[in-house]
Structures are given as structure tokens and as C-alpha cells.
């Protein structure tokens, strides 16, 4: 059941991206008013939530352990954040970047064999739940920061080059994107910090049982350091606007690439 619901959610996310991207196929035509993408994202998030709940019922544990469940949770958090942004700003542009990310992560979750993962005794404890939950939320916020930054760079280029076409009309104001990027960092960094700190504690506890993997901690620490560096530079006023957007994009790619390398190199089996 949860697999079917995930497919429904995936289809709705995909449809959202398609609807948002449709105006770009028409030259210099303004996109339609954005209630359709907002509704589609809402339906996708609801279906996704139902899918995760069905997984909880079927497996008897939260979807935080195992590759497919944790990837699905990450996609859900990112979808939820995108929905919130769409709702609050009445702008759908965020779905243009966040949408494909969600679709990609969900597709990876489904492709990796979605099913109830066997949990180690410690993985259903509160410590692990807070660690995994905050880590996933931190990564989702980092992805949101990346999405805002990517849109900022596109809008910056459009405005600088005076290209008053579909993108110009569709993308939100630079200041709004910069603020979103900033907010995602400000919230994401402490959240990820909590996840990392708890991971260290969890690693110490799990060392005796062999339930934890140092690669995950390496990746988490790397994410934390990159996000922390960007956040610190922003807080101190060294990074703003285009440079901050570039830093966010590069940071996100660095973290994503490192994770993929670690995962492919043999640390697979669990997302966190």
C-alpha cells in the first residue's frame, strides 16, 4: 500500500514540475496563475504523508532507517518545505528546482527497494529518532537553500542580461530568493548541528555494538562544516546575494557528491 501511495505522490510531484515548466516551452508567454502547481504539490505531500504513515503501520517503526525510508522522508520534508514556500509567497518557482530534487530522491527510494527495513535495537530509540529526524530536516533545508540559490543565480543572470522573457516573469524577486536562502541556512545549520551532535553520541553508544558507521559521521560532519562555513560567512556579512547563492550551490553539490561517493564506496545500506 505504501509503495502505491509513494507512486501516487511521485506522479503528483512530477506533474507539478511539468506544470511549472510548461510555460517555458512557449516563447515569451506568461505562466498561468499558480493555483494549479500549489494544489498539485499539496496533493503530492498529502499522498506522500499517507504513504509514510502506511509504512509506519506496516513496519512498526518510523521511516528513518534504511535507504528507501530515509530517502522518502527526506523527499517528504523537502516537498513539505516547498509547499510552505509556495503557500506563503504565492510563487511556484521554488518547485522548478525543489520538484526535480524530490522526484529524484523519491525515485531513488523506490528504486532501492522500498520495504520495511530490519531495525537494530537502538534505531527505534528517541536518541536515534531525533538524530535522524534533525539530520534529514537539516539536509532538506540545505536542499531548499540550494533551490533558492539556484533560482537566485538564474534570476540574477536574467536581470543582468535584460532578458525579459518567461523566466523574468516567473522567477521571484532577487531579494526574496536571497532571504529564503538565508533563512534556510539560519534554520538548517542549528538543526543539522543537533543531528551531528546526537550522531556523535549515538556513534559512541553504538561503537560497542558495531551498529554505527564512521562514514556517515564523516559525511554528516562534512555537511555540517560546509553549512557552518557558509552560515558563518553570511552572519558576518561576508556573503550576500550572488556570492551567497554560489556558496550555497557549491556547498550542496559538495555534500551531495561526498555522500554519493561514500554510499557507492560501500557505506550503503542506510541513508544516515
Amino acid at each position: 500500500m505504501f509503495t502505491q501511495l509513494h507512486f501516487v505522490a511521485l506522479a503528483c510531484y512530477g506533474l507539478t514540475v511539468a506544470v511549472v515548466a510548461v510555460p517555458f516551452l512557449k516563447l515569451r508567454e506568461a505562466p498561468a496563475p499558480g493555483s494549479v502547481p500549489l494544489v498539485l504539490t499539496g496533493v503530492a505531500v498529502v499522498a506522500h504523508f499517507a504513504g509514510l504513515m502506511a509504512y509506519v503501520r506496516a513496519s512498526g517503526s518510523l521511516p528513518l532507517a534504511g535507504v528507501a525510508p530515509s530517502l522518502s522522508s527526506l523527499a517528504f520534508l523537502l516537498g513539505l518545505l516547498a509547499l510552505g514556500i509556495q503557500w506563503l509567497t504565492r510563487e511556484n518557482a521554488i518547485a522548478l528546482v525543489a520538484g526535480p530534487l524530490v522526484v529524484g530522491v523519491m525515485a531513488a527510494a523506490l528504486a532501492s527497494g522500498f520495504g520495511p527495513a530490519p531495525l537494530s535495537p537502538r534505531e527505534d530509540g528517541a536518541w536515534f529518532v531525533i538524530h535522524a529526524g534533525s539530520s534529514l530536516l537539516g539536509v532538506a533545508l540545505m536542499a531548499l537553500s540550494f533551490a533558492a540559490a539556484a533560482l537566485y543565480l538564474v534570476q540574477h543572470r536574467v536581470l543582468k542580461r535584460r532578458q525579459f522573457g518567461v523566466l523574468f516573469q516567473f522567477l521571484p524577486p532577487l531579494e526574496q530568493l536571497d532571504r529564503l536562502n538565508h533563512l534556510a541556512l539560519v534554520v538548517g545549520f542549528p538543526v543539522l548541528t543537533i543531528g551531528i551532535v546526537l550522531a556523535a553520541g549515538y556513534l559512541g553508544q553504538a561503537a560497542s555494538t558495531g551498529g554505527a558507521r564512521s562514514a556517515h559521521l564523516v559525511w554528516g560532519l562534512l555537511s555540517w562544516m560546509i553549512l557552518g562555513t557558509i552560515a558563518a560567512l553570511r552572519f558576518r556579512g561576508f556573503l550576500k546575494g550572488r556570492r551567497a547563492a554560489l556558496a550555497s550551490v557549491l556547498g550542496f553539490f559538495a555534500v551531495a557528491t561526498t555522500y554519493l561517493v561514500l554510499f557507492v564506496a560501500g557505506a550503503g545500506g542506510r541513508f544516515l
Partner: protein
Amino acid sequence: MASHADGTTPGLMVIGLSYRTAPIEVRERLAWPERDVPQVVADLAAAGGGSGVALLTTCNRTEFYLADPGSPILDEVWSRAAARTGQPVDSYAYVLRDRDAARHLIRVAAGLDSLVVGESQIQGQVRDAWDMAKPFSGPILHRLFQSALTAGGRVRSETTLGTGSASVPSACVDLAKKIFSALAGKRGLVLGTGDMSELAITLLVGEGVLPTVAAHRNMDRALQITSRLGGQAVELDHAWPLFKDMDLVICSTAAPHAIVTVERVGAAIRARGNGRPLCILDIAVPRDVDPEVGKLDNVFLYDIDDLQEVAAQTIGERKRALPAAERIVDEEVDFFWEWYAGRGVVDSVRALRDRMEELRTAELARALRKLDHLPAADRERVEHLTKALMNKFLHGPSTRLRAAAGNGHPAQLAETIRYLFELGGEPAPSEPEKHDE
């Protein structure tokens, strides 16, 4: 270019370039300041060879309207344009003749040839061009500009073409909002105190921008504006360091060359906070801002063409009114052309009427001699009858002759009338011919 392929001289001609044919770099060099236009028109008229001249020069177009132009005035137009732009303008210019020329001005005045279709400013600019050219415009251009302004007025009152807020100042706000999500609390600097500047300041203040107005010569005007709308007024020379603290700069001075240069404002812009965008909207023609300024980090520079392009994207509502507006233009072109082409048969129609009046008077006198017994009141009735009959007989042919002349060959028609009614004399010398482009 002075004559048609068949060797005839066109009666009406427009030579010009506009945003459709020339980039702003060329247009700004050719545009004349308003104060110089009367002298330019006078100089062209003095060159001789035409019966009327007018010059329409705006940020979007510079057009010479010529009636019965001969070689001297045409040569003068081309050489002046080349001298002003520093290059031949042939590749950017268009030449329209007779009915096409008339239609062009009427469409321009109606706002149909504007980048922001339906914008109303052009109507005033056409009126100003007419006013400034009046001593030299002659009867043909006088009538043409009247028709154009009538069409413009009708289009704006009878259609919805002019509705909505699409304008360059509103585009300034739209563009600024693509950089700053909200303008409230932002600091704006406006260079210049003209009408466009004032309109822009009004809109910005309405959005919550804190304005500073910089004036070059007219400090009193700057103080008037700021006393009414708020903000502060400064001398233009003191404005350059202010670029450090501004979010938005609107430039609309009448300076003949760029006054905002990297040398003047580069240091102030570089001293701004890291990543803080500066939006510069240059609505002046010639442009006030050196394009190099736009290459500085975090500077977003837009000129009049950019703003009009943005404004033109908001005219969806207006597009629906286009067919009705074009119909009004067609009607006014027909009215004008009927008058214009009818001039070629006016003398013949007048001669015909004189001849008929002569015959009527003679026949009436002869008849009244035989009706001597009639009382005075009846004699008046008879005279009235003859006049009414003559007018009725001649009204149809006179009207149709003018209309037929409008469709071409007025000289032949005039000759036919003179032959048929034995009117004698020569046809009018300056009859317009219908030419093909």
C-alpha cells in the same frame, strides 16, 4: 530618394527612424532636444523645395514630415541626420510616401506604433511637434496633424486601448520589484526634475520609497517636488556620493551625453555593502548613464528600451482593443486622404459651380423677364427653386469627384470635367498623384 521611380515628386513624405529600426545608440544621437526643434524646422524650411515641414522627435523616434518635398529639403534632411549621428542613417531609416505617410502619423498619434501600445504620451508629443512646426507646416501637414490628433483622441475615448497602467514609470516600479521584493523603505535617487521624473517620483513615493531629487539647473523645481512629495533635494554635483547608500536610481535629465559614469559613481558603488543590489533606471534619451556602469557588480542598469519592453508585457488587455483602434485609424486616413487628394479637383469643382451659377443666373433673369406679373414673393420663390435645384444637381458629382480623386488620377478627372462642361483654364498645378512604394 527625392522622387519616385516614375519621376514624379511625392506630395507627402515621412523620413524617420524609430525603435523598430534603430537601436538606442543611434536614436539618442539623432534625437533633438525640444528647445532646438523650432530652429531645425526653420532651417529645413529655409532650405527650400517644400511646402511644409515638421519634426517629431521623441525617445522612440525621430521623423521628418515633408509636404511636396523637393531635392533641396530632402538633401538637407539626410545630411543633417548623418551629421548628427556621425554616420549615414540610410540603413536605419524608413521613407514612407503619400497615403502610407499619412497613415503612419495617424497610427503614431493613436499610440499604435508605440512600443507600449496605447501609451498616451505620444499624443502630446505629436501635438508639440505640430505646435513647434506651425509657422512652417503648411496646409497639408496642418491638416494631417489635425487628423492624427483627432484619431488619437478617438482611439483613446472610443476604445480601451489606453486603459491600464502600462507606462515607462510603472515599468520602473515593476522592474525594481523584480530586484527588491518590496520597495517600502528603500532609498531612491532621481536625477532630473522633468515631468517624467516627477511621475516616477510620485509612483515610487506611493510604493514607500524615500526619495532624493537631484537637480542640475532647476533647484527650485526640485524643492517644489520634495515639498509636495517628501524627501530631500540636492544639487546634481552632490548626488554622486549618494550612490553608496541608494537602492534605486532613476535618471531623467536632459543632458546631451552620459553624466553617470564609472569615474563619477564607481567608487561610491564599490563602497556599498557586500552583495547589495543597485537598480539604475535610465529613462533619458540621450541616455544619462554610461553602459559601463551596468557592468559593475550588483548594478542592474536598464534603459528606456528595456523599460518599454517590460511595460509592453503588461498590455494584454489593450490588445483586444487593437481592431477597433485600427478601424478608427482607417476612417481618419480615408477622411484625410479624401481631402488631400480632392485638392486636385477643387479648382475644377469650383469652376463648375461658377459656370452653373452663371447659367442659372442668366436663365433666371430671362425667365423672370417673362414673368413680370409675378409678385415679389413669388419671384423670390422661383429664384430659391433654381438655387436649390442647382445645389442638388451639383452636390453628388462634387462629392464623388473628390472621392474619385482620392482613388487616383485627379488631374485626368479635372481635365474631363473641364472638357465636358467647357470650363476652360488649366488644372491646378500641385495635384497629388497616388504613388506606389
